[in-house]
């Protein structure tokens, strides 16, 4: 009250704190072997898919006589049925997959977190309605529904595909978030916030959700994993128009062209499979390590 | 940490001795301690006990050069705020420290029937027997300390069997006898699961378990903290009666001055891992010589007498990793002088020529200004200080860290 000099506004602080918290998480990740491998793998695939294409030209030229070649120094991963370089296709084929996966995971998490948090905190009719919708979606088998949908909707837009996958993917995560919020809302500091009448928005998004960051990060990663499976599955079954170039399309083409029956097609058919598996494995390891970092009950020792 | 320690060492919160007739340590070990120097009635003699443990931030100096003597039938209260190291001190006496903690110096000598042994220097087998023979520790958290899936009777029998009392019937009989001794409905309680008992009943069960193998020293860590007032009273009265009947020595670890006033013969104030003052209960409550003791006494509200304005000890409890230079109480002390910063005062007798080791018949304080402190203290006329507050400079120092 005495000489309270105009203090600098507090805005930079939360940012700093977030950066520091992020740094701490990354450090903790790298300390565990699984976390380090997972993080490395994810970063590797991101670089491959988004930076790689600037350095590796997509090979579109049909080269007669060079079809179905095994990996060699000229073609690192062999060639496809038209003699095109598989390696360049792998480099260019990750982008769409990752974009769809990220879009799906983002939308899923956003829907699940906001609905779950509000349902858990507000309760009442809102909770009942949201739960009912979630239960209906949960009871419909996802993959067959997608198959049916794919026959009606032309899924030539990768973002649209992401939205569709997300529309079906949020209920499970929503239920989990809701139950977390149900337990968090019992905390004294939430009661204090209610007593101060800080408003539902503030309580849910400033008080409750920040303490669930870890959980949300894990859910995001798991959402990506699920989205990759679904999307590759759909492409593989030919239900998504084969435009562009991605690992799913590669796999589908390799399959319908019968690469599996040709000795030289080994590199062609295995490359997308291995790429998808490695990306998934990295994500799984990352999710598992994140879980260990954020969930004290799983933490070993101190 | 108090509660977790109990569970960390596995279920039962009471460490009681086996057959009281086996003396498994060798005379070679015995030789380390010159028993003849100890007066016969001393059952526990601690010298220069020092415990430190490593955490990420550095070394925690939990116990620093603690010495005291405890006589048969005597009750010593260790009083201090949380984090003062009093619980670590108690754990070190039975060598139940967490793994990270190390006793870096000192001796802890138990004496019985003319035989003395330093428990810090015996091997693990001998230690186990010795520890359980001489000293039972009852932990703070009465709920965590009992195994939730076993009936009380079985837990008593387990402890008895583990220490040589193999006859089940004898063990059961002894269990019932002890439960009666602590004023419980013995048959019913023996057949109950811990969750069926109230907090006060569980605390009494633990005290009974502590008595199971008749140790001569019992350590109670915050025995009444979690209990309601009326239950607390029962436990206090029980302890008083038991120690009169059984003549065991009792070490009370507590932050509660009133509990010490009720039960203790000797009181030691513990601050920053050291005993800073020790004397008879009357010395400590009516003639304190250390500013911290005075501070604690001035901060306790009473039920009787006129209203008097109370003052807290200013500032914050010390950081055991980064202790202040010189006297560790200096940052909170109203009597501080430059001398206090130069040197950490030793514990010395407040009476010229008196014994400087805490124990019956001595009153010691670790303060250069003890006479001034003593002169300034007057229990009934404590009104000169005005109001409060959390010292600005002390919190500033903490803030800077």
């Amino acid at each position, binding site marked *: 009250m005495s000489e309270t000099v105009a203090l600098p506004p507090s805005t930079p602080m939360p940012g700093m704190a977030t950066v520091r918290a992020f740094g701490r998480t990354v450090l903790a990740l790298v300390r565990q072997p699984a976390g380090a491998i997972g993080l490395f793998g994810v970063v590797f695939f991101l670089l491959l898919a988004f930076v790689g294409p600037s350095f590796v030209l997509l090979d579109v030229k049909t080269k007669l006589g060079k079809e179905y070649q095994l990996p060699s120094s000229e073609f690192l991963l062999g060639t496809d049925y038209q003699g095109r370089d598989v390696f360049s296709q792998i480099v260019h084929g990750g982008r769409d997959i990752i974009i769809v996966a990220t879009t799906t995971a983002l939308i899923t998490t956003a829907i699940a977190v906001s609905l779950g948090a509000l349902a858990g905190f507000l309760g009442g009719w809102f909770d009942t309605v949201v739960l009912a919708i979630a239960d209906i979606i949960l009871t419909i088998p996802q993959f067959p529904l997608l198959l049916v949908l794919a026959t009606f909707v032309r899924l030539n837009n990768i973002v649209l595909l992401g939205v569709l996958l997300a529309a079906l993917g949020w209920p499970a995560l929503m239920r989990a978030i809701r139950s977390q919020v149900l337990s968090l809302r019992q905390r004294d500091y939430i009661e204090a916030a209610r007593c101060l009448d800080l408003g539902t928005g503030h309580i849910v998004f400033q008080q409750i959700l920040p303490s669930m960051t870890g959980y949300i990060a894990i859910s995001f990663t798991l959402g990506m994993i699920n989205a990759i499976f679904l999307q590759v599955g759909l492409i593989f079954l030919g239900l998504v128009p084969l435009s562009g170039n991605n690992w799913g399309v590669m796999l589908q083409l390799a399959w319908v062209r019968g690469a599996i029956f040709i000795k030289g097609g080994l590199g062609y058919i295995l490359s997308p499979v291995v790429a998808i598996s490695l990306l998934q494995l990295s994500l799984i390891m990352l999710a598992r390590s994140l879980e260990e970092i954020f969930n004290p009950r799983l933490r070993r020792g101190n | 940490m108090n509660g977790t320690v109990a569970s960390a060492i596995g279920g039962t919160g009471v460490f009681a001795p086996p057959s009281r007739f086996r003396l498994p340590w060798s005379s070679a070990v015995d030789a380390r301690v010159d028993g003849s120097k100890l007066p016969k009635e001393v059952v526990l003699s601690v010298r220069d006990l020092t415990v430190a443990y490593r955490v990420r931030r550095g070394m925690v100096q939990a116990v620093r050069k603690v010495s005291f003597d405890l006589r048969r039938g005597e009750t010593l209260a260790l009083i201090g705020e949380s984090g003062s190291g009093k619980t670590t001190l108690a754990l070190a006496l039975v060598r139940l420290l967490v793994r990270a903690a190390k006793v870096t110096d000192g001796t802890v000598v138990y004496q019985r029937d003319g035989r003395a042994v330093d428990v810090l220097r015996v091997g693990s087998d001998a230690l186990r027997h010795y520890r359980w023979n001489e000293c039972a520790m009852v932990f703070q958290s009465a709920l965590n300390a009992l195994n939730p899936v076993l009936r009380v009777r079985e837990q008593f029998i387990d402890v008895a069997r583990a220490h040589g009392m193999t006859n089940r019937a004898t063990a059961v009989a002894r269990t019932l006898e002890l439960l009666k001794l602590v004023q419980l409905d013995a048959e019913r309680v023996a057949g109950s699961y811990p969750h069926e008992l109230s907090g006060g009943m569980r605390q009494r069960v633990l005290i009974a378990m502590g008595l199971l193998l008749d140790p001569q020293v019992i350590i109670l860590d915050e025995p009444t903290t979690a209990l309601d*007032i009326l239950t607390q009273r029962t436990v206090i009265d029980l302890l008083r009666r038991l120690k009169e009947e059984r003549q065991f020595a009792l070490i009370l670890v507590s932050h509660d001055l009133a509990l010490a006033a009720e039960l203790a013969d000797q009181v030691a104030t513990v601050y920053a891992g050291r005993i800073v003052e020790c004397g008879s209960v009357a010395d400590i409550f009516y003639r304190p010589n250390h500013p911290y003791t005075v*501070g604690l006494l001035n*901060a306790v509200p009473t039920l009787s007498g006129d209203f008097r304005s109370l003052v807290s000890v200013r500032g914050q409890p010390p950081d055991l990793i980064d202790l202040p230079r010189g006297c560790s109480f200096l940052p909170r002390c109203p009597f501080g002088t430059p001398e206090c910063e130069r040197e950490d005062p030793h514990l010395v007798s407040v009476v010229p020529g008196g014994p400087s080791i805490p124990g019956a018949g001595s009153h010691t304080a670790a303060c250069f200004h003890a006479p001034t402190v003593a002169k300034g203290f007057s229990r009934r006329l404590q009104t000169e200080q005005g109001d409060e507050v*959390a010292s600005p400079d002390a919190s500033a120092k903490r803030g800077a860290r």
Partner: protein
Amino acid sequence: MTAVNARSVDSPTSDGSHAPLITLENVRWHVPTPRGLVKAVDGVSLSARDGEIVCLVGESGCGKTTTGKIAAGLLTPTSGRVLYEGRDISSLRGDDFNRFRRGVQLVHQDPYASINPMHTVGATLSAPLRRHGFAGSSSAARTRAAELLDLVDLTPSKDFLDKYPHQLSGGQRQRVAIARALTVEPRFIVADEPVSMVDVSIRISLLNTMLRLQRELGTGFLFITHDLALARYFAWGGRIGVMYVGRMVELGLASDLVANPQHPYTRALLSAIPEADPELTRRKTRVELRSLEIPSLLKLPSGCTFHPRCPQFETGLCEVSVPQLRAPGSTVAELDSSNVHAVACHVVARG
């Protein structure tokens, strides 16, 4: 609305016509559980004038915390009413409700649980300041937050603004919790065992801070504690209510109640509390209870709930009807007894 006022509060006191700020009128909190109806609070009436200190004392399970939450409007009583400035809070809407909501604040027992660990002290204090328009900009909120920290003796305040709760001691956190309650300039603070988890050596300074707030800002307190000595210290100028399993058994001026307890339960409590004075405490005469069992809230004893333990129990009287809280000699049950020493005991009432 005003009729209620007249009926519930007859305070021909020295304070004259001062109407109570907050009144609990025969509130109950009965919770159905699978094992039966739990009567956590069973008909408690209490009122506090502006700036008054009232202490609720009782052992665990006596319903004092629930009563506090009802007073703070965080629990709606299953029956009975809470009046703020003479108006039933369940009927308040809009601005009126907001005035109540801001007017009565709560300080929790556990400062480790009551402050969001993810927010800095500055953010914790700024949120309510911004929300309720006590600060127009974030820098104004920061300035005000610093002032509030000064007010609760967390100095120098600017050192604390950017700290996270885990960097603070229990006592410092509790001061932050008090500062947070003060952000909305309440007239009444319900403090639920605010010092029980704070180190002994700094308890008193926390209480002194709250007493100073009461003096300087005129904030009233409902101070909930299990420690009668603390209650006596804190409420020296106010009143103490003693609760036993969901009911108020005695209510009176702090100094009077402790020096001259009437209810057998209060007497037993006072005789049982150890004091930090060896001669005094060892000389104390004890009130012996007939039983140590605390009754289960699921199966309360009939009549006076204390009768199975009471040393003054009289057959045919105590277990038959529930004694009303009233001044000895008076036949009128007091809903609120501003300056009266009221006791809920048949034997005492008979004189």
